[in-house]
């Protein structure tokens, strides 16, 4: 029983880090542009398909395929920002609906190109680690490590570089930041594109663990939004923490209670935490 619980807790952390990487994009975009980019789920789906295509069809090595996918998704993200998102800055509802419209368009494109037949990548890193009776698939551990590295890297970049501090400053006080010489338009574009790149990376690594369908993004964007809110919007490490809390509560909830209620376990946590701390677990602002 202990092994079952610890095993599922670790698995929850791994699943949660995937929520976390998308949640980081949600939280950054929201902090800097005031919109919730629901299409990040669709960008993740794009990343997964691009990785599958480059790896299984073109035949690139897996890391190169993921890198290619991230670049591709970033380009799509840049175009979307210039063509669409830059006109919805600061307007939550418009941004929400534009991103929902984009989900339909992206899904249609992928359907037309690759049909509904699910894709399953040739295994990148088969096998599992056995530690004290707990079995963890190697690929999941590797993916989790990459996600953690990227999230901590982002945290360092935001706190240690000029650009990062500019972003923080802007999120706290846009007018003051502009007066201090922060070029807000460019900063916002960078953040939007970086968020889509994170989603692309999430999708690229997702593809090595699970099968791919055109609709995979919708479930993950919801989790990511929940994770971002749970943590408190604007907190980088919080996005990871929120994702892990969700992942662990879902996994452990499914072990002790019916798994048909899996999604509810995280939601109950979310409501409970927001009632105790309306600004989120790691946030300080309401």
């Amino acid at each position, binding site marked *: 029983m202990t092994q079952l619980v610890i095993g599922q807790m670790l698995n929850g952390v791994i699943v949660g880090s995937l929520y976390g990487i998308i949640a980081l994009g949600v939280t950054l975009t929201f902090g800097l542009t005031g919109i919730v980019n629901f299409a990040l789920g669709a960008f993740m789906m794009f990343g997964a398909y691009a990785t599958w295509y480059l790896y299984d069809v073109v035949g690139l090595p897996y890391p190169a395929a993921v890198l290619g996918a991230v670049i591709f998704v970033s380009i799509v993200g840049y175009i979307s920002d210039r063509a669409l998102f830059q006109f919805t800055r600061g307007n939550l509802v418009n941004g929400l609906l534009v991103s929902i419209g984009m989900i339909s368009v992206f899904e249609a494109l992928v359907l037309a190109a690759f*049909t509904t037949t699910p894709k*399953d990548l040739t295994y990148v890193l088969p096998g599992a680690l056995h530690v004290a009776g707990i079995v*963890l698939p190697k690929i999941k551990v590797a993916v989790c490590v990459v996600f953690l590295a990227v999230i901590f890297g982002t945290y360092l970049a935001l706190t240690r570089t000029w650009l990062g501090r500019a972003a923080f400053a802007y999120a706290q006080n846009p007018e003051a930041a502009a007066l201090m010489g922060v070029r807000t338009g460019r900063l916002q574009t960078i953040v939007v594109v970086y968020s889509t790149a994170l989603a692309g990376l999430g999708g690229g690594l997702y593809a090595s663990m699970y099968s791919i369908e055109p609709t995979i993004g919708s479930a993950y964007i919801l989790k990511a939004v929940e994770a971002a809110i749970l943590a408190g919007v604007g907190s980088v490490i919080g996005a990871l923490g929120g994702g892990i809390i969700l992942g662990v509560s879902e996994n452990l909830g499914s072990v002790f209670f019916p798994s048909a209620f899996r999604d509810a376990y995280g939601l109950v946590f979310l409501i409970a935490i927001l009632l105790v701390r309306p600004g989120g677990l790691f946030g300080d602002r309401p």
Partner: protein
Amino acid sequence: MSGSKRALLAGIVASGLLWGQAARAEDVVKIGQIEALTGATATYGWMSAQGTKVAVEEINAKGGFKVGDKTYKLELLQMDTRGEPREATVQFRKMMEDKVHFVFGPFLTNVFNAIEPIANQNNGKFLLFAGATSAHNALGKPDHDYLLRTWNWDAGSVGFGKLMVDYLKKLHTKKVAMLFQNDAFGKTAVDIYSGLFKDAGIELQVELFEPGTKDFSASLAKLAAGKPDILFPGYSDAVLYDIVRQSTESGFGNRFFLVRGSIGPALKNKDAIQDYIAYVPKYFESAEKTEPKVKAFIESYKKIFKRDFPYDQAPLCSSSCYDHVYMLVEAMQKAGTVDDVAKIRAALLNMTYDGLWKIKYDKTGEAVFGFDVIHVRKGGAIETVQYDPTKE
């Protein structure tokens, strides 16, 4: 303001006229199809919709077909329900207004349940070739003369599910763990197979998961704790790929049994599985080499869609698909009419069609056709057991 409403109304009326127009040509027989072609449950309808298209294009390319002394062509009207019952009710009403006499689909249980009342009101005017599991219970009820069910029934004395459970029993199975999607079909499947396993004296554990789930570790770990002999997962291919991989990789179990879905997941994990027993209406990879009709179908498919043949999904053509168009045409020729649906139904029930599958209907209007039970073993060795219930 008034302009917009008027424009909207004009738009609606104009589109109504457009629909009306298509109905006029006289030498055309219309086949409607309502399936989910996009959205989360699209896999099933998607394959059927392509198969019917291949059949219709083939028949029309040959100049159509003759009934009496008149030559007819087929017109295929495909609607995408997205798996949403509400959409389907509007689309189905539209087909009834267009006087479509033959409607293929739906495969999805919730969509069938939604259109059933409207179909009942139109009883006698059309035939519905539904694959949905829930359609089984509606067969033979009053006001249901329109209904034909195009898939083998799981239960019953010659039901494939029963044959498969018997097969499991022969392998000395004592306990089965069912891990199914919590949707309309999942619930129906749990109801059907709970009964079948009980009759066979096999113990059953059930766990349901939310549609969209990708990580099954928790459910698998929990089921594994009950030490089942074999896992019974369902039902879409995407889910099966994930379950088979996660179960074998983390050591939760390496024996699988399934009644919907392909053997793709078994071949992908061929060294990790022990047994993988699946109901496969036809194993296309091997049938292609021995059956000319299968080969011709695959070539036709590639020519029309200009893409690789989806071997994994192709067995779904056993429901309201390629064969069923040809069978319908043959029935129309036998009945000597293209619009007297009662006669055509009678002709369908009295014939056996020999196409990709050998298909006939029992007296309630449910399809009976030959199928394979495929047993994949460790290393990828495939053992095929063929059943032909049409002979009985």
